[in-house]
C-alpha cells in the first residue's frame, strides 16, 4: 500500500440552507477543496459521493446527480451509504483507490439536504428512526433520539453519569460552535438553559440533541509522490478502522457502549501505531451528548465509565488532556448526515495545518475522526498526521 495524504478540503456553512440545492452545496465544497489543493477538475481521477438517504434527496442515485453537476463525468464514481458515517466510508474508499495504486488523486464528497420546504421535523425524525430494526422494533416507537436515550439511561445506571455531565457536553460544543463561522449554531448556551430545555426522550432533553442540518464537505486525497509535489502541507492518513454493531437493539449485550467504535478504534490505532494518549485533537460523533461521552471511553481517551468525569473536569476543552469537537461538533456545527464525516476531516486537516484560528489546538500533530452511522451500525475511525 502507498502512503496517502489529504491535499485539499472544502465545506459549506452548515445550517438550514433553504436557497441551496443538494448539488449546489456539493459544488461549493468541491470548489473550495480544488482551490485549497491547487488542482483543476481534470486532475480528479476517481470520486466517491456520500449521501445518506434517497428519502431526503427524493432521487435514486443522488450521488450520480451530484457527480454530473461537479462536471466530472465520465470518470469513475460510486455513491456510498453508511448512514451518518457515509462520507467517512467514502474517504476510506478514496484512500483505498490511492493506496492501492489504482488512482493518484481521488475525491470523497459528502452532502445532505435534510431540510426541504414542506418537510416537517416529525417526518425527518420518523425517517431517521427507520435506521432501527423495522420488522421487530420500530412499531414500539423507539425513535432515533430514543435509541441514544436507551444508551444514556444505561450509562447513568451503570457508571453514575449525570444529566449535568451530559449537558456539559452541549455547553462545550456550543462554546466552540460560537467561534466557527461554518457552524449551524454560532452561540453559546448555559448549563441552566440546557437543563431547562424540553424533555424529548428521557433522559435526553432538546439541548442533548444535534440539529437537523443541510451542508456539504469533501476531501481530496493524493498519493505520496503527487502530494509532495503539489502540497506544502500534506496531512497523512495513517490509520483507518471500520467497525459495525447490530441494527436491532435486542442483539446488543451492553447498552453503555458502541461495539463498532471499540472495534474501529482498535484497528485504526494499530494501523497508525499510536495510542489514544498520542492523539492531540479529535472530532467525535456527538449526535447526542451521551454519544460523545461514550466515544471518550470507547476510543480510550479515558477508562470505561469515566467519560462523565472527563467533561466535568473540562479535559476535552483546548488546554485539557484531549480537546474534542473544538469545531462545535455535530451538536453546534450541525449534522447534515452524509457530509458529517468529511466535515470532521476538514476540521482535523485545518487543525494539523495550524489553520484553525481562534479554535487552534497548539502544536497539534495527530488528529482523529470518529464517525458513527445510525446508533452504531457503522463506525469509521480515521487517524491523521501532519
Amino acid at each position, binding site marked *: 500500500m502507498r502512503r496517502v495524504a489529504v491535499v485539499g478540503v472544502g465545506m459549506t456553512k452548515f445550517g438550514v440552507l433553504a436557497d441551496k440545492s443538494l448539488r449546489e452545496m456539493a459544488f461549493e465544497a468541491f470548489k473550495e477543496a480544488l482551490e485549497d489543493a491547487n488542482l483543476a477538475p481534470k486532475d480528479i481521477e476517481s470520486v466517491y459521493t456520500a449521501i445518506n438517504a434517497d428519502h431526503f434527496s427524493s432521487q435514486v442515485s443522488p450521488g450520480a446527480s451530484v457527480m454530473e453537476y461537479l462536471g466530472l463525468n465520465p470518470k469513475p464514481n460510486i455513491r456510498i451509504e453508511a448512514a451518518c458515517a457515509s462520507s467517512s466510508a467514502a474517504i476510506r474508499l478514496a484512500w483505498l483507490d490511492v493506496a492501492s495504486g489504482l488512482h493518484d488523486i481521488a475525491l470523497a464528497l459528502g452532502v445532505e439536504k435534510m431540510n426541504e420546504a414542506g418537510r416537517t421535523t416529525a417526518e425527518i*425524525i420518523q425517517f431517521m428512526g427507520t435506521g432501527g430494526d423495522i420488522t421487530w422494533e420500530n412499531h414500539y*416507537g423507539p425513535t432515533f433520539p430514543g435509541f441514544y436515550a436507551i444508551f444514556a*439511561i444505561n450509562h447513568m445506571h451503570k457508571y453514575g453519569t449525570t444529566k449535568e455531565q451530559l449537558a456539559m457536553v452541549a455547553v462545550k460544543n456550543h462554546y466552540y460552535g460560537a467561534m466557527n463561522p461554518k457552524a449551524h449554531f454560532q452561540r453559546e448556551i448555559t448549563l441552566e438553559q440546557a437543563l431547562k430545555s424540553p424533555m424529548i426522550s428521557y433522559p435526553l432533553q432538546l439541548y442533548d440533541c444535534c440539529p437537523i442540518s443541510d451542508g456539504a464537505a469533501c476531501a481530496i486525497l493524493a498519493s505520496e509522490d503527487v502530494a509532495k509535489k503539489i502540497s506544502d502541507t500534506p496531512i497523512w492518513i495513517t490509520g483507518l478502522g471500520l467497525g459495525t454493531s447490530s441494527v436491532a437493539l*435486542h442483539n446488543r449485550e451492553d*447498552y453503555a457502549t458502541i461495539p463498532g467504535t471499540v472495534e474501529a478504534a482498535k484497528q485504526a490505532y494499530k494501523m497508525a501505531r499510536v495510542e489514544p494518549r498520542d492523539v492531540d485533537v479529535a472530532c467525535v460523533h456527538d449526535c447526542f451528548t451521551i454519544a460523545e461521552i461514550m466515544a471518550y471511553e470507547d476510543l480510550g481517551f479515558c477508562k470505561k465509565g469515566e467519560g462523565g468525569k472527563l467533561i466535568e473536569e473540562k479535559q476535552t476543552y483546548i488546554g485539557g488532556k484531549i480537546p474534542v469537537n473544538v469545531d462545535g461538533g455535530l451538536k453546534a456545527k450541525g449534522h447534515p448526515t452524509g457530509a458529517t464525516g468529511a466535515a470532521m476531516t476538514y476540521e482535523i486537516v485545518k487543525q494539523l495545518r495550524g489553520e484553525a484560528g481562534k479554535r487552534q489546538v497548539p502544536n497539534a500533530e495527530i488528529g482523529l475522526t470518529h464517525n458513527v452511522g445510525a446508533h452504531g451500525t457503522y463506525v469509521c475511525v480515521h487517524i491523521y498526521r501532519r
Partner: protein
Amino acid sequence: MLSAPRYWREIRYRYRLIGSRCLKCGKIYFPRRLVCAVCGSRKLEDYKLSEKGKIKTFTVIRRSPPLGYEKNVPYVVAVVELEDGVNVLSQIVDVSPEEVKIGMPVELTFRKVRENGKEGIIEYGFKFRPIFE
C-alpha cells in the same frame, strides 16, 4: 412504516413470543432464525420464550414520537431481558413512566401495538407490565 402484510407475516411468533433454539449448540434466539449464527446448524426448533424478565434499559418518549404515535406519549420503550437470557425490545405498560426502573421485574401482556396505514388496520403484539408482588 412497515406495511401491514410484513407485520402480519410474523404474527404467530409475535403473539406468543416464539423464537428458535438451535438443536446443536442450544443457542436461543428471538426473533426466530433459520440458521444458527453461532454454529451454522440449520436444525433449529420453535422455542416458546419465558414470559417473565426484567428491564435491562429503557427510555420514556415524551416528544417527537413517530407519526401516528402522538396520542400515545409519554410511553416507555425498554429492552427486556427474559429469563431465557434473550433480549427483546418492547413497551412497558400499566405503570406510570416515573416508576419504571432498570432491573424491574416484568411479565408478558398482549396488547394493541398500533394502527397501520390509511385503513387503520390494528396490529397486536407483545408488551410487558411490571410484576407487583
